[in-house]
């Protein structure tokens, strides 16, 4: 089984004067071929670091990320197998080159084919993402495209190499709702072509639209994971409960979010403890992930 696996992955960044910040702390999960998983969390939860670890833009400080049983560092053709779509469509294509060049160049390098053949494949990729007819788009530079068109061009670049795994890091958060929905629909369609998707978002409703399974990340650790409707309908972790309650849903009455920004986290404690209304002394030694029922797991002393 082709899988992208995180095994006890930790990533610590070093700051000035010997300070360190652990962005990802002992994260384990897997993404199987053809699967669609959402990684949900707030700013600073480590979502983007996970994305960068999955594409080898960062190396883990501890633990391993592996693809089909092989550590990522040893995978020679990683960019052909795992691709990423970035959050900011305005800065993720080189504005010096035409859209066509940005897409066809990697194809020519990968497949060792002539430019005309690579060009044909680039056109097909543009067509696939809805930039039709593709020829005029090939000649444009990114500054001539709208935000939605740029993100489509980014996706075309990513799928042109036919990767089996796609990491999408908040691909719609800088776009208008309707434009963003077009991108979400595109991701749903691409995923139907047996491409596994790791969809990173802060928006639980968007996660539900795209993914089947959800992983909830809080301050670098996975606090809950499971089938997305299970997690939304029966959130177990106090953080997930707050997250579900705070996500706007016109069908439900407004529940004001609770105050309290995370300030200091005591070393070793459950990272949510400073904000948690149900904390006890037992939160000092957080438990490992506990499977509550098939596929639904949580990391909280309430479920010991």
């Amino acid at each position, binding site marked *: 089984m082709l899988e992208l696996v995180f095994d006890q992955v930790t990533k610590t960044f070093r700051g000035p004067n010997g300070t360190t910040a652990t962005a990802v702390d002992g994260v384990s999960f897997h993404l199987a071929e053809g699967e669609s998983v959402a990684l949900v969390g707030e700013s600073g939860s480590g979502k983007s670091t996970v994305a960068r670890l999955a594409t080898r833009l960062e190396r883990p400080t501890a633990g391993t990320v592996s693809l089909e049983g092989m550590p990522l560092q040893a995978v020679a053709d990683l960019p052909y197998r795992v691709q990423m779509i970035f959050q900011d469509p305005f800065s993720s294509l080189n504005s010096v080159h035409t859209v066509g060049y940005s897409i066809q160049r990697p194809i020519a390098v990968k497949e060792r084919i002539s430019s005309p053949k690579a060009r044909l494949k680039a056109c097909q990729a543009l067509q696939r993402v809805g930039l039709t007819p593709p020829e005029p788009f090939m000649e444009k530079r990114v500054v001539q495209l709208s935000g939605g068109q740029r993100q489509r061009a980014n996706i075309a670049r990513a799928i042109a190499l036919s990767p089996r795994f796609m990491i999408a890091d908040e691909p719609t958060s800088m776009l208008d709702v309707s434009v963003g929905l077009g991108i979400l629909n595109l991701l749903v369609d691409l995923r139907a072509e047996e491409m596994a998707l790791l969809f990173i978002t802060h928006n639980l409703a968007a996660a*539900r639209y795209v993914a089947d399974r959800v992983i909830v990340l809080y301050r670098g650790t996975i606090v809950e994971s499971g089938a997305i409707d299970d997690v939304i309908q029966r959130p177990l972790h106090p953080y997930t409960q707050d997250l579900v309650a705070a996500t706007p*849903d016109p069908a439900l009455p*407004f529940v*004001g979010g609770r105050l309290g920004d995370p300030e200091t986290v005591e070393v070793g404690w459950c990272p949510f403890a400073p904000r948690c209304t149900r904390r006890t002394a037992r939160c000092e030694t957080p438990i490992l992930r506990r499977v509550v029922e098939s596929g639904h797991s949580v990391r909280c002393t309430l479920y010991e």
Partner: protein
Amino acid sequence: MATPRAGEGLERGETLRVQGLDVDYVTEEGVVAAVRDMAFSLRAGEIVGIAGESGCGKSTLAHAVCGLLRPPARIRRGRVELGGQDLVGLSERAMRSIRWERIAIVPQSAMNNLSPVLRVGDQIADAMLAHRPGTRAEAREKARGLLQMVGMSRRHVASYPHELSGGMRQRAVIAMALALNPEVLVLDEPTTALDVIVQAAILGTIRDLRDQFGFAVLLITHDLPLLLQTVDRILVMYGGGLVESGSADGIWRRPRHPYTRALLGAFPPLTGPRARLEAIRGMPPNLLRPPAGCAFAPRCPLAGEACRRQRPPLAVQGDAAAACWRWEAGEGEG
């Protein structure tokens, strides 16, 4: 607190009234019709949300209401009445005694525009001292109270902006806007860059303070589900104009305008059936050359000949209104 000054024609409890407002941006390529024929009113203690996508005129309207438009923007016609007094055409000097004192705005990304070199408390104190006589010590003490009111700690008066999270900085700018006890608070995308839990907490705080002090709130956001859950009334803008208004509940249960329906349908739901949603086809209108008829007609599934020829008037039905020639025809397909 909303005492109508001149009071002419103001309905009971009305504090802000906008009538026939047109705003242009005069550019080298021509005149951009950013806001057209905008009309609405705000009652004391009411939270009204303005929804719409980028470029529909939401922020331009907010700036116009607060007398903050600068060239190339200009008000072509219309009135912005605060307590019966028309603010359009007032000198900057006269406007200064109204802005912040009676109508306060938290502009988009205001939380990133606090001065990095001054303590938060001093920035709030400066704002107060610019408008009211008093000592710095008194102003700082008032700032402590304001921070506490918006859910921060009193000790945050001594904090620098970089020491605070985004949510805390946003609370601080809201505290600053409320410092002089305004009648109207305008919030332009106040929670857009924040996490949902922080967003819910801030909106909860605004609702509580509204209950306590009775000011009116104009809340601008692209997030229609958020408005549906948190405000009393909603105005939906498209292409610079008002296409629909109504109670939040009414718009949720019975959206009339095809644009409102399409916009509602573009937000994936958190609960309920997981069906494929369709994005609104086409692009928003180019306001340099606005379409002759309904601005939404080129993208509208219901549009007919009349829609392309003539701009529909706002048809009022009770407390709901929609500017559409054919909304009744579309209801069955809701």
